[in-house]
Each structure stands twice: as structure tokens, then as C-alpha cells.
């Protein structure tokens, strides 16, 4: 437990906060630079408690081995768990009576549910010899305001009973984030708003877990899909952000070609430095908000350039996925983040997109 | 200008209608001629206006980049409305042709058509009304039947609840009485049995009138004082039979006089356990 106390002392250092991304009526605030979060005392206490109790489960064991490094950069470590993996994005309506204190109970209940499902034979590829364990834990790193709202991570691991020394393999990781603390104060106090859910793992487990969550918390969870409009925004906003350490990936735009034989998609790759120059010339460097006109100009210039060389009108085709130096997003709701510093801005954008779709009364209270 | 175009259309339409009518009397043909002349006049007027418009009015594109298109649109609307007002005020209402005969013909035709349509409507409504009446009758019938059923059910419920209330007490009393009687009879039978048994099958060493129960402490095998009298033996057997029906066996011990056991065995009242000869049980010898 001593390592835990060093952890909590590290958190007391003061970090800067920078404005997070927000979309309001066609304007967006872009982040630049390192992001951080403030911790509250309650969070610190809970974290140490959870790490102490979750000693046999995989998530915590990872943290334990890395604690010597935590003193320097806690956020990048935890955000690093999100980076360089493909996540499927789901959107969740507010959860009813979800409490961070009851995570253990939820773990147990979900484990029972998973075992039942396996016994029933619902799980494909797993026989009844496999045991599953579900673990809910608090995933720090994404606090949005002073009270330090936490995100919750669920990891489901499965292992075969007979092979005793077989390590349990993680079959599903699910992250429930974007929790906005204000919501719990204004909407009747018993609702928790965690709009963004990221999953990674086998589909069958995802389905079981989501059905359980919908039953347990009386919410609805759907696959998130991005329209061309949102993808265009994302490209314009993030194409100019080049992460410093690694060599940046090229900016990619994938279009789906309508009704032509033999050609399904058209991929446009642009050198990120050129993109950055275009971005700088389009964007008004003084203002911190990103305007719709700038998005249009950005795209128009790209399309014109393409037309001049290839005589193809890009605007006739559907934009199906985009890749920027910091993130790759497809219209079906799959996302892969490359840069640790910008994880927060990406997530904030997702939160905003989902909250936009909430009914107006709910939006006003958020 | 569009107003005059509409008027022209109407008039030519009317002329067509009238001309196509089956009854083309003299009056009508004159009317048609008059109408034709009118049409030609209007056409000429229209052409004049049109050339006027082409000369003087220039069309404007609504979407010019420097001004809001809505401004232009609203101005146009404004001008159009004013023109309409002026035209209507000037013209009065002169839609129908002035010729009396043509007018009459048109009015008659319109009336006839209207009458036909109304008759159709009437027929339709009548049939609907009939359907509804039948439906209503059926539903009333159902209602009556349902009410009957309801009444019967209520009666049944009342009877059942009455029976419940009264019979509970009766049955209780009855049962209580029966139980009492049975208990008394049982006691009586037992008494009789005890008397009979102790009279005819007295244990050895026991004098008549002196029934001594065997105590647990002293087990005196030499004397006959330790023996269970037959009636207790029988009682034990009977009790065992009812209390533990799956294992109605009694372990034989020193208390049980072997003669008694022999007697009971020979009469067929008891029977030994097939595996263990020390166990005996009561059998239904009366069957």
C-alpha cells in the first residue's frame, strides 16, 4: 500500500487546465497543448481504496507495476491506455442510480450474468468450462470540472477452468466516460450522465454487457455513427494539429464512391505538414474558436486542388472515414487515437456530439 | 397581368363548356359568338400589356450577392398585391358572360351537377346510417347478454360467500362434536380392552385387581414384576404403528413376556421382522 501513498502525493501537484473543445451553433473551441485535470480529495481516497482491493485483477496489476513512473506523468499514463487501439463508440443515455460506490456490486452482478450466458450456450466459441469475471473500476484521467467526475472502466476477462495455469485473457474492455458532474445535481440527482462509451473486445460480450447495463441502469445504448458533416468538422479541426514527438501520420480522407463498377472507395492522403500550412492560412490564429466558414474553406480548397489534378468532384461523394495525425475516425463509429495529449479534446467532442442529440430539456440542464 | 391571363383562361374555358353542350340553340350560338369576340379583344389587350411589360419592366435576379434576396422578393410581393387590389377595384366582378341565355345555361348545368353530387352523397350517407343501425342493434344485444351474465355471476358470488360464512361455523361445530364423540368412544374401547385383557391374559404373578405398571429403574428378571402387562404391550404396538408408519417395529426386550409374544404371534396379531427376529410389528389381523 505504500506505493499508493506516493501516488496520492503526486496528485497534489498543480497542473494547468486549458479550455476544452465545445461546439455551439457552428463554432468550436480547439485545444492546443497539454491537458490536465484536478483531483478532489474524494477521488484520491477512492482510488487508493480500489487499487488496494483489486489486487488480483488485471487492470490494477498493470497500475501497480508502473507506479514508480506515476510520480512524473499520471495523465499520460492512463490516457496511454486509450491510445493506439481501435475503439468502437457507443452513445449512452443518462444512467439511473449509478453510483461509484457500488462498483463492486455491479462487478458481481455482471459476473453472474456472464456466467449464466455462457452456461446457456449463448457465447459462441466458449464452452461451459470457461469462467468469466467482470471488474468495474474507476478510470482516472478525465475530470471535467473541479469536482473531478470520474470515468468508469469495465474489463471482462475469461479463462478456461481446466487449464489451471492459464492466465485470464481480457475479452472485453469497456470505458464509460464523459461524465459530467453538473448533471447529477440538476436532473433529479439520481441520473448520471456518461454519454460516451468506448468498447474494445468481442462482440458477443459487448452485447451481453450492454443488455445488462440497459436493464440495470434503465438507459439506452446505441452505436454511434458520424455523418459526413461531423467528419468534415473533425478533419478541419484536427488536421493542423501535429503531435510533437512522433512523426505525424498523413491526413487521410476516405470517400465512398457511389454506384461505380469496380471502385468502392477513394482515399486521399495528404502530407500533414502541407495540411498544417493550409490550416494556418485558413484559421484565424488569434481566435480560439473554429468557425464553420473555416471548415468550408478548408474543404473547398482541398476539393479544388483535387479537381484540378484528377478532374473528380469530391463533393459528389460521401466521406466515410477520416484520419488525422491525432485520431482516425470512421463513420460507423470506430476510432483510433494516436496522440495522448489530445485524447481529452477528442472525447470532449464526442460528448458534445452526443449531448446535442439529447432532448432539449435535458440539454438545458446540462 | 397574370390576372388578365387567368380571366382569359376562364372565359375560353367557359366558351368551350358552352360550345360542347348538347343543346346548342340559337340563343347559344349567338352567345358563343359574343364570347369569341370578347376573347379576341382580351387577347389583343393581353399582347399589348405583354409588350408593355417587356419594354418597361426589367426582371431582376433575386439572388444578387450584395443585397438580401428577401428584400427583392418582398418588394415584388408588395407590387403584386397593389396591382391586384387596383385590378379588382377597377374590374368589379364580371366573370360571367352578360348574355342572359348563356348565363342561364351555365347556371343550369352547374346546378344539375351539384344536384347529382348531392344525391350521391345522400345515398352514401343512407347506407352508412343503415350499417350503423345494424351495428347498434348487435351491440345492444351483446350488452343485454353481458348484463344477464353479470347478474348470474353476482348471484353465484353471494351464494358462495353465504355458504362460506355459515358453513364454516357449522362445520367447525360438527367436527368438534365428532371429535369429542370419537375420543370418548376410543377411551371406552380402551377401557374395555384393558378389562378384558387383564381378566383373561393376566401376567403371571399379578393378582386380579392389582395392576402394577413396570417401572424403568428396577429390572428384576427373577420375579415376574418386571413384565409388561398385555394391554400396555398392545398399546405400545398400536402407538408405534401410528406414530412411525414406515417402521412400526418394536424391539423385544426382557419386559415383553415371551408367552405373550408367542400368543400374539400364533393368533396372527403380530409378525416378526423378516431379517431380525427381535423385531415385531402389529398387523391388520382384522382384514
Amino acid at each position, binding site marked *: 500500500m505504500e506505493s499508493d501513498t506516493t501516488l496520492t502525493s503526486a496528485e497534489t501537484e498543480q497542473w494547468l487546465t486549458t479550455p476544452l473543445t465545445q461546439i455551439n451553433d*457552428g463554432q468550436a473551441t480547439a485545444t492546443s497543448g497539454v491537458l490536465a485535470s484536478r483531483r478532489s480529495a474524494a477521488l484520491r481516497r477512492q482510488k487508493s481504496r480500489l487499487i488496494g482491493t483489486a489486487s488480483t485483477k488485471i487492470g490494477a496489476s498493470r497500475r501497480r507495476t508502473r507506479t514508480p513512473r506515476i510520480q512524473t506523468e499520471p495523465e499520460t499514463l492512463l490516457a496511454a491506455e486509450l491510445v493506439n487501439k481501435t475503439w468502437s463508440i457507443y452513445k449512452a443515455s443518462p444512467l439511473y442510480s449509478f453510483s461509484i460506490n457500488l462498483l463492486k456490486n455491479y462487478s458481481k452482478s455482471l459476473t453472474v450474468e456472464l456466467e449464466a450466458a455462457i452456461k446457456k450456450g449463448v457465447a459462441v466459441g466458449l464452452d461451459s468450462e470457461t469462467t468469466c469475471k467482470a471488474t468495474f473500476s474507476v478510470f482516472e484521467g478525465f475530470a471535467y470540472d473541479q469536482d473531478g467526475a470520474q470515468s468508469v472502466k469495465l474489463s471482462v476477462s475469461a479463462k478456461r477452468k481446466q487449464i489451471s495455469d492459464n492466465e485470464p485473457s481480457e475479452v472485453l474492455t469497456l470505458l464509460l466516460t464523459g461524465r459530467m458532474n453538473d448533471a447529477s445535481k440538476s436532473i433529479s440527482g439520481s441520473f448520471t450522465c456518461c454519454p460516451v462509451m468506448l468498447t474494445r473486445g468481442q462482440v458477443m460480450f459487448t452485447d451481453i454487457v450492454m443488455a445488462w447495463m440497459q436493464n440495470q441502469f434503465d438507459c439506452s445504448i446505441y452505436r454511434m455513427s458520424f455523418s459526413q458533416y461531423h467528419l*468534415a468538422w473533425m478533419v478541419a479541426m484536427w488536421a493542423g494539429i501535429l503531435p510533437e514527438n512522433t512523426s505525424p501520420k498523413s491526413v487521410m480522407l476516405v470517400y465512398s464512391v457511389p454506384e461505380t463498377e469496380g471502385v468502392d472507395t477513394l482515399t486521399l492522403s495528404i502530407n500533414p505538414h502541407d495540411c498544417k500550412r493550409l490550416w494556418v492560412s485558413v484559421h484565424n490564429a488569434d481566435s480560439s474558436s473554429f468557425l464553420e466558414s473555416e471548415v468550408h474553406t478548408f474543404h473547398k480548397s482541398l476539393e479544388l486542388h483535387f479537381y484540378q489534378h484528377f478532374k473528380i468532384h469530391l463533393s459528389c461523394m460521401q466521406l466515410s472515414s477520416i484520419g488525422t495525425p491525432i485520431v482516425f475516425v470512421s463513420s460507423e463509429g470506430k476510432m483510433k487515437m494516436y496522440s495522448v495529449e489530445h485524447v481529452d479534446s477528442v472525447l470532449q467532442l464526442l460528448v458534445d456530439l452526443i449531448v446535442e442529440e439529447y432532448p432539449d430539456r435535458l440539454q438545458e440542464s446540462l | 397581368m397574370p390576372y388578365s391571363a387567368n380571366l382569359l383562361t376562364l372565359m375560353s374555358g367557359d366558351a368551350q363548356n358552352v360550345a360542347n353542350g348538347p343543346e346548342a340553340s340559337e340563343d347559344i350560338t349567338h352567345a358563343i359568338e359574343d364570347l369569341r369576340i370578347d376573347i379576341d379583344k382580351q387577347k389583343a389587350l393581353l399582347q399589348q400589356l405583354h409588350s408593355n411589360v417587356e419594354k418597361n419592366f426589367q426582371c431582376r435576379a433575386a439572388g444578387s450577392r450584395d443585397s438580401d434576396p428577401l428584400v427583392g422578393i418582398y418588394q415584388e410581393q408588395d407590387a403584386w398585391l397593389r396591382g391586384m387590389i387596383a385590378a379588382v377595384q377597377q374590374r368589379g366582378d364580371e366573370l360571367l358572360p352578360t348574355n342572359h341565355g348563356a348565363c342561364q345555361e351555365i347556371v343550369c348545368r352547374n346546378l344539375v351537377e351539384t344536384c347529382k353530387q348531392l344525391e350521391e352523397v345522400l345515398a352514401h350517407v343512407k347506407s352508412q346510417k343503415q350499417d350503423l343501425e345494424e351495428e347498434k342493434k348487435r351491440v345492444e344485444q351483446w350488452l343485454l347478454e353481458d348484463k344477464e351474465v353479470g347478474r348470474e355471476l353476482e348471484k353465484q358470488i353471494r351464494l358462495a360467500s353465504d355458504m362460506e360464512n355459515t358453513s364454516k361455523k357449522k362445520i367447525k361445530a360438527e367436527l368438534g362434536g365428532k371429535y369429542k364423540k370419537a375420543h370418548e368412544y376410543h377411551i371406552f374401547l380402551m377401557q374395555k380392552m384393558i378389562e378384558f385383557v387383564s381378566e383373561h391374559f393376566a401376567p403371571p404373578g399379578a393378582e386380579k385387581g392389582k395392576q402394577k405398571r413396570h417401572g424403568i429403574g428396577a429390572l428384576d428378571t427373577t420375579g415376574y414384576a418386571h413384565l409388561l402387562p398385555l394391554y400396555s404391550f398392545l398399546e405400545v404396538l398400536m402407538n408405534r404403528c401410528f406414530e412411525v408408519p414406515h417402521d412400526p417395529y418394536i424391539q423385544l426386550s426382557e419386559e415383553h413376556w415371551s408367552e405373550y409374544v408367542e400368543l400374539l404371534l400364533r393368533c396372527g396379531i403380530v409378525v416378526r421382522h423378516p431379517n431380525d427376529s427381535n423385531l415385531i410389528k402389529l398387523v391388520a389381523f382384522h382384514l
Partner: protein
Amino acid sequence: MAEILKYLAKLPTPLTAVTLIVGDEGAGTLELANLLLQQITDYHLRVHTATRLPLPEDGAASRPNFDFVIFLLDITRMESFKQTEEALQYVDVAYFHGRSCLIVNGAKKPDRWANDYSIVEELANAYNLQIICCQLEDEEDGAVVRRRLTAPAI
């Protein structure tokens, strides 16, 4: 000035409604034209289609006066939106006084929209156009659109 589609360049044809559908290729102009022609009306209906305005000078002589202009927009493609915006510049003011409307195709697939609906609405309001949203591939939608366009004004 000759480029602008002028209302009443010629006398209107009696008992006929001449319609012009302006829409980008692939926005569904042909489908809409066929739909309109299926409608039974008291008057004759003629439908012309064009992909962009201004109309070419060649056929100007044989062209009748257009009574109604329909702007067809496919919301799943940016190109369609741009073309419509441009086309709106070349139309006489008189047409916006109840003689034109905007039909938005592709309304039932919001995950494929290339533009926010509010932008389309802004465009329509700027020109005082009525919007009809539909998915022309669906038969029901098509029938509704047809009836709305050809319904006699009360």
C-alpha cells in the same frame, strides 16, 4: 441579363402548367419528373428538367414560359447544395412569389447528410422558399410530394 430565368418572357400557355426542375445530376430530377407526370390533373402538365442555371441560349426560342420552378437538393452531397445555391442566383424575383419551392431529397438518412439541416433551412428562408423534405426512392414519400405539388391551391 439574358441569363436570368425571366418570368413572363412569353405569354403563359392557357390550361397548361409548365414546370422546370433544377437539380444536380444524381439528385433525382428524372425521378421527380416521372412522379409528377403520373399525377392526374385537370390541366395539362409539362415538365422540363435542368442540371444548372442559367439555361443554355440554344433552346431559348422553343422554350415556353415556366410557371413553376422546383429546386431539387440532395442533402447527402455537398455538390448538390453548391449547385442549388448558384442556381438560385439566376432566377427572376417574380418566381419567388409563390412560384417555386425547394425539395430536399435524402431526408430519411441523417447519417449520410453532408450538411447540417439548419444550413438548408437558412438558404430556403433567405429566398422565401417552401421546403419539402422527402426520400424520393420511397413510394409513399413520392406520392405525398406529388400530391402537394399538384394540389389545387385553395
